[in-house]
Structure formats: C-alpha cells, structure tokens
C-alpha cells in the first residue's frame, strides 16, 4: 500500500509551508467549540488543511502552547471540512479528553491559535461505481465516516450506518448521520441508547438486507478486528481506519507501526500514519499487534539487538 495510492493530490501552490503536493503546516484559529456528551468538537479555520482533504485523513495538532513540555502532536480524524469559497476553509475534529494533551486541548476557547499539520494519511478508497456499503463507527470513530457517507451518497451508493459506544454519552454523530442518511442503527454496551450490545450484532443483517459489497469502519482496534471478521464471513472487504498512537504523524518516527500483509504476501511493520490510517481489514494481522511475528519481513535481522 503506497502513500497517496488513494491520492490526495493538491493542485497549485499554497501559502503554507508545503513544497510539494500533500499536507501543509499552518496556524489555525478555533472558530467554534461544542460539547457532545463526553466529546468536544472543534471547528478551526484552516484553509490549507481543508483544501486537500479526503475522508479518512487526519490532522496532527500541537498541544500545550508555546514552550510546551508535550512534544508530540495529537492526531484526530477530520470531518465537516468546508474547503472555503467566500470564507476561509474550516475543518472539524472531535476530541476525547483522556490525557494531559487532550485535556489541554478541550480547555482552549474560541480564538485560540492551533499549530496544525494535515491533511495526513491515506483516505478511504471510494469505488468508481456506486456500491452498497455499511459504515460502522465506534465511539468518536464515527467522525471520519460522516464525510465518507456524504461522498458515497453523492455518487449514488446505497448506504447504512451503525454507530456504537460503551455508553450513550460516548456516541458521536448519530444526529448528523440520521440527517444525512435518513436512519442510523445505534448500539451501546449498557443499553443507555439504541439496542444493547455491540456494533457487530446488527452488522450481519445490515450487510444481508442491503446486499452490501463493502464495509467501512473506524473505531477501537478490537472493534475493527471484529468488523473485519464479519465482513470476511460475508466474503466482502472491509476498509478500516485505525486509531494507533503516533508521535509525528508524517512518517518519520516509526512508532505507529502495525503488522500488515502486503500484495506480495509478505508481512511488514507499516506506519499507520502514512501507509494508513485506512487499511484493508483482511490485511492487518490483528492477533499479532503488539508482538513481533517470526515471519515478519526483517524479524530475522533482529538478532543481538
């Protein structure tokens, strides 16, 4: 899977710091902050990031302000991107506060300037012809699925969406999804919203009723693995966007790797920031995440180190 295979070609130059087509680094001002359950949604003026955006891509945000002791950017899936016509382009992303960096971010008011790098990563592949598809989101993993749904509907694809979370306050985007698609299936582990259970419970019947030929998903790793297995059982592909922790987001640090089987059948550690975050679920060796499988390319070169 090569970077840019799905393509994010930027035509023309931009005022930000990019020298080739691709991501830009720019300072964007927070335009709006909205709380949704346990999440915080940011709308940020960022025309450079907005211009080249495709669904599935993410933005890496510096946290802590000038002289921060937190060196690593936090990455968030993009959605609600408005490329800007008369007004400057804006981007949206949603943050769950679960560490010092994200806790800093959710405290920032409208008007705060954020240092952004994006759009990053390989987007969701979109079939050339309309194809019936089921979109599955876990927690705020629904965020990148909203612009994807928009894109699929625009090309005439028949789609269904399933959103799930542990509890009702950890759901995101169900209203936007309902407005867009007309209906959405909701599951929660504790039954506080929608049907009690996991997203994979209603998934088989959704695939069968729709005659789906493709599944898209974003959410926690165990969910993506389970969605991939359901898709496989129906002999259809699943394109999934992973949430792996990244240090740089631009492909230089090698921390966000996953064991993935390539076209040549050889498995490698690949970077989820530039070779992902979207992968074919059938290619990811879910059971081996966090290990060093002996048959991985280069595993035999690790002796002595």
């Amino acid at each position, binding site marked *: 899977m090569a970077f840019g295979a799905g393509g994010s070609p930027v035509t023309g130059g931009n005022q930000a*710091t990019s020298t080739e087509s691709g991501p830009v*680094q720019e300072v964007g001002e927070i335009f709006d902050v909205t709380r949704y359950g346990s999440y915080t949604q940011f709308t940020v003026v960022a025309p450079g990031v907005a211009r080249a955006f495709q669904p599935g891509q993410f933005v890496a945000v510096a946290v802590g302000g000038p002289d921060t002791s937190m060196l*690593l950017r936090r990455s968030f899936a993009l959605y609600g991107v408005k490329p800007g016509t008369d007004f400057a382009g804006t981007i949206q992303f949603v943050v769950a506060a679960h560490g010092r960096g994200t806790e800093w971010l959710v405290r920032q008011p409208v008007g705060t300037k954020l240092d952004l790098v994006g759009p990053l990563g390989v987007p969701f592949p979109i079939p050339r012809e309309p194809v019936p598809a089921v979109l599955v989101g876990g927690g705020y993993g629904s965020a990148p699925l909203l612009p994807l749904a928009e894109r699929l509907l625009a090309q005439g694809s028949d789609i269904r969406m399933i959103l799930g979370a542990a509890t009702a306050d950890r759901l995101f985007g169900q209203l936007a999804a309902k407005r867009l698609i007309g209906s959405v299936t909701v599951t929660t582990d504790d039954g506080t919203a929608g049907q009690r259970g996991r997203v994979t419970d209603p998934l088989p019947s959704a695939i069968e009723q729709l005659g789906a030929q493709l599944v898209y998903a974003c959410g926690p790793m165990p969910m993506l693995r389970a969605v991939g297995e359901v898709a496989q059982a129906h002999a259809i592909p699943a394109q999934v966007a992973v949430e792996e922790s990244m240090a740089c987001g631009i492909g*230089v640090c090698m*921390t966000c790797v996953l064991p993935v089987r390539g076209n040549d059948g050889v498995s490698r550690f690949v970077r989820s920031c530039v070779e992902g975050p979207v992968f074919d679920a059938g290619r990811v060796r879910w059971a081996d995440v966090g290990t060093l499988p002996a048959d991985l390319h*280069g595993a035999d070169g690790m002796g002595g180190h």
Partner: protein
Amino acid sequence: MADMSTRLASLALPNPVLTASGCAAAGRELAQFFDVSAIGGVVTKSIMQRPRSGRPTPRMAETPSGMLNSIGLQGPGIDSFLANDLPWLREHGARAVVSIAGGSTDEYVALAKRLYREPVDLIEVNISCPNVESRGQVFACDPLAASQVISAVRRAAHPSTPIFAKLSPDVTDIGQIARAVADAGADGISLINTLLGMVIDTETLQPALGGVTGGLSGPAIRPVAVRCVWQVHRAVPHLPLLGMGGIMTGKDALQFILAGASAVSVGTAVFHDPTAPIRIIRELEAELDRCGFASVADAVGFAHRTPAEQAALRGTIDVEEINA
C-alpha cells in the same frame, strides 16, 4: 548577516543545521514541508546490512519535555537504501550523511565498503549498538570496542569520505571515549545519542514500551548534551563536532556551537514541528548577528574562552587592555 557556512572535516556545508539520525527517515517525508537541499544535510536513519522489522509496539512514550523510543532500528537494509533512498537524496540536492549501524565490527566494515563508490558526503557511525561478539556490550561504552570499529571503518571507507563516530552519553567519561575514537582515526564526532530510559505504565503495572527500555530524547536531555559537547571539545579540540540533543530553537543551537560544535542536528523537534530545521537556521542566524559573530566559525567553542578573551575577540575592548 553572519556567514552561516561551516565545515565538518573536509565536508563544506552552506549552514550548520542538519537532521538527526532516526528523526528524518531518509529525507523524503520532510520534503513535503521544506526543500531538503536548503539545510546543512540530511542524516539518515541508521542503515544496517539486512532488513530489520524493528521491535513490537508500543514503541513510544511521551515524557516531560521529551520522549522515549524503542524502535529497534527498523529499516530496509543497505541494498534497498542504495537502490531507493540515496539516489533520491542526490536528486534532491541534499547533502547525504549516512548513518550506519552493526552488531559486529565486520558488519560496520561491510557497510563502509558498500558505500565506497556511492555519493555519500559523510558517514556517521552509530556505535550505540550491542556488540554480539562481546555479550551485547554496547560499542560506544567501551573505548577499545569503539576504537576498533572506527579504525576498521576508516580503513574500509573511501579515503575522502569523513567518518564521524556517534557517541553515547551513557558512559562514565565521555572524553575518554572521544580520545579513543580520535586516535582510531575518526574525522569528527557526533554527540549525543539518546540516554537509556524507562517508563512503567501504572495502569498495567508493566513497562510502557514493548522493548522495555528506550532512548530518551528531546529538550529534557539538552543540558546533558551541551555538557558532553563541552567535555569532548576539551578532550579533542582538533576534531569537528556535530552536536545534538533536544535542540528546538536557534538559541539552543547556539549553545551547542558555543560549547564546541561546528554543526548541529535537529531530531525530536521535527516530530513537533516538521519545519524546525529551516526555522532553526533562520533563528540561529539572527542569534549570531545579535551576538556580533561574523561567522559560525567565530562562534565555535567560544564559551571556552574567558570573558576577557571573549571581549577582546569581539572587539569591545582593546586587546592591549587585557595584556596590560
């Protein structure tokens, strides 16, 4: 405007800011953000003979003003590097500093031989690797093993390619290691590599990294790095130094130059700010101007001079006044 050009042994650079090994891959990704020919040079991720998968995840933990990494030198191996990465650096006008790593002296020598006829501007020898022939003792922590690798690489490499030994700060006396590699024929010294560190996850009650221990980098280690550059400049004043360790700004870079570095590498800062190397060139130039240095060369090791000597050199007081 200060003259920003500098030298690392026989290699002339238009400015003294390079990337740091392991923080820029082989340059391609950063070219999305700046022109790689505009910086002093690209120092590649350490290249080994064979492809290496690297260690299992998690490979990274953020720490106060720093990070801990345990990548395990994931890389494609020398064949793929020569076929794909080095030509790319050449085509894009970057000065290519190739970092090599090995588990035995023979492996370092084999790599130096493979690079003999290649367009390499400088070889940085990453000796912070366990020596498989010495129960995993790290080369950089043993003056004898370090000097054996460096003298072997010096003999095997093209005579006009400068060889820099990259030192680890995890030693009792870094000056002793510096003298050993200088005697072995190193044309210069890069320092410092990461410090060995560890984080324990208080939720899982297990080490946070898949590799258990990892290398600490970022501004947290900067004072250690400045101290090491200072000590090594004292130990081997005739050798050019490439300084690194937590450089985030032009002011930080100036500290390394004042301590004795002829050029600096910017590493972890790139993860925070992909355009950091370009910004730091600009900031360093402004700092040199502010201090009244006409050139980078004038500032190298300047902190080692007494205030009176400094004043004389800067022309703020008459030389005779000091001598009187």
